[in-house]
């Protein structure tokens, strides 16, 4: 009986739960970014992403828009992370 | 006219911040027969206590047709007692001018003379039905699609024929007879305007509630041996009688 259990386990072992956790971590972090800033932030972020995607294929989480409101002024920080292979391609 | 103008305005986007529509409801009605009978209130309370879920917050229409010649003095107490037991009296039908005034005073609505219900103040109770013309047998309504939970199908005149299942949580009502040629799992109200000759027929009885001329039977009261059977339901001596069909 033990033999069969072992046989089944070794054959069916998969890491889909790890994959799920990985996907969710990224996603939940992205969702949380949404709160706090002005209403137009998510759309701004999306439109920036859209424009950049016309030239470079990048993922959603590679464009970061951060809003800091200070007393005299507010700052909008836009951070774009480009893929390595693109830089390599340009360099050569 | 006014109604359609309002609807047009609201469709146009501006318009009113609300919508008025006609809607058809099946209401319980309480026919006041002998309000001075000492057993009136005890009997009423007993009836409500028997099926509290059915009555809880249910709207009810008071029918003064049988007592309109008498004084409407008892109306205030009836309204109050009903409210105490969480039944909500919403209006009066078949009242005389004096009864209508008393009802308005109590904040009740006045319903137009209810179709086939008793008009003659001298008739009350049994035997009355035989005297008045039965509104059954008139062309009614035929439904071929299942009546699902949450839906209501009403034949305001004549009989209702349903050729598909009536789901639990659905309501079918007719002025005349109700025929269901499939399982009846919801609620059926035959003789909804007071026709005591109305009957209910169904192919498979699993009803949550059966009612003829406002007299009802809840599922727990139905003989379990009749469940799932082809039956006929009639009103005999103010009680519903459920019999198997051959």
């Amino acid at each position, binding site marked *: 009986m033990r033999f069969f259990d072992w046989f089944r386990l070794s054959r069916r072992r998969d890491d889909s739960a790890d994959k799920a956790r990985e*996907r969710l971590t990224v996603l939940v972090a992205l969702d949380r970014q949404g709160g706090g800033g002005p209403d137009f932030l998510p759309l701004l972020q999306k439109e920036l992403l859209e424009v950049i995607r016309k030239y470079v294929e990048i993922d959603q989480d590679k464009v970061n828009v951060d809003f800091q409101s200070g007393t005299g002024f507010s700052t909008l920080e836009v951070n774009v992370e480009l893929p390595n292979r693109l830089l390599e391609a340009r360099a050569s | 006219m006014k109604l359609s103008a309002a609807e047009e305005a609201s469709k146009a986007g501006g318009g009113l911040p609300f919508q008025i529509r006609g809607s058809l409801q099946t209401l319980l009605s309480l026919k006041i027969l002998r309000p001075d009978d000492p057993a009136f209130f005890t009997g009423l309370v007993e009836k409500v206590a028997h099926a509290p879920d059915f009555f809880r917050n249910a709207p009810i229409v008071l029918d003064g047709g049988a007592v309109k010649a008498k004084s409407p003095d008892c109306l205030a107490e009836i309204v109050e007692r009903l409210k105490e037991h969480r039944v909500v009296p919403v209006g009066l039908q078949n009242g005389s001018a004096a009864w209508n005034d008393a009802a308005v005073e109590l904040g009740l609505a006045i319903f137009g003379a209810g179709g086939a219900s008793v008009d003659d103040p001298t008739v009350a109770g049994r035997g009355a039905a035989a005297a008045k013309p039965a509104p059954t047998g008139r062309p009614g309504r035929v439904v071929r699609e299942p009546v699902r939970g949450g839906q209501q199908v009403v034949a305001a005149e004549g009989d209702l024929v349903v050729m598909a299942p009536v789901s*639990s949580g659905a309501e079918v009502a007719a002025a005349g007879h109700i025929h269901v040629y499939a399982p009846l799992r919801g609620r059926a109200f035959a003789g909804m305007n007071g026709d005591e000759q109305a009957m209910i027929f169904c192919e498979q009885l699993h009803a949550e509630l059966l009612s003829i001329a406002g007299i009802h039977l809840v599922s727990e009261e139905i003989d379990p041996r009749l469940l799932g059977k082809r039956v006929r339901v009639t009103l005999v001596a103010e009680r519903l009688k459920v019999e198997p069909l051959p």
Partner: protein
Amino acid sequence: MSKVIVVTSGKGGVGKTTSAAAIGTALALRGKKTVIIDFDVGLRNLDLIMGCERRVVFDFINVINDGIRLNQALIKDKRVENLSILPTSQTRDKDALSQEGVEKVIDELRKEFDYIICDSPAGIEKGAYMALYHADEAIVVTNPEVSSVRDSDRILGILSSKSKRAEHGDAPVKTHLLLTRYDLDRVQRGEMLKLDDVLEILAIPVLGVIPQCGSVLQASNLGMPVVLDDKSKAGQAYKDAAARLLGEDIELRFVNPEKRGLVDWLFRRSA
């Protein structure tokens, strides 16, 4: 001739999104141009089940309210040709869905796609009405369990009275039963409603019976519609259902006990 199909149930958690993703993908695999729309505004999930959550830039709500073009919001599936996803918004609520807005999007999609699959939110609130309003056909996802069956019955009533077809007096919405999480062992032990019980109450034709199967969870973990898992029984059952939707006459599988061979017998003994 394009078809709008709503995947609905009334009750939540019965497998609507999984089913919409699986059937949409199966139709695309059969060469039909298919788009799946997520109507669950504020609780976006279709993108996760389809594994395209990182590719969402614009969504259905942006198209309705923010002047974004439909083509900017549609996500083409990378694995299956002919398949697109229209994700919904995670930040807005159901009020962002306007009757006219939805209608415009559906009309535009009809020009380009053979099948438009609307993944309905649970409940009978605005989102669910919007999802079913334009439907030509409806897949009612039901679990063999009393509350799910009752809610499906309620949804069938709403389909027959509140859909565009009902309001315009056209031919009624064609309804299909999709029975999911069907556990044959439990049915045989009398612990679970059987297909016939559910059919008796709902009285609509059956599109498919999806067996309870671990591969469904595994596929959702990976963000892959379960029909892309060739070994999955649920995946095969969904493919059968899609074929029936295309009018093919295929016998129901996984509703009767399989004839067990010696090896199966041994496995059962060892389990």
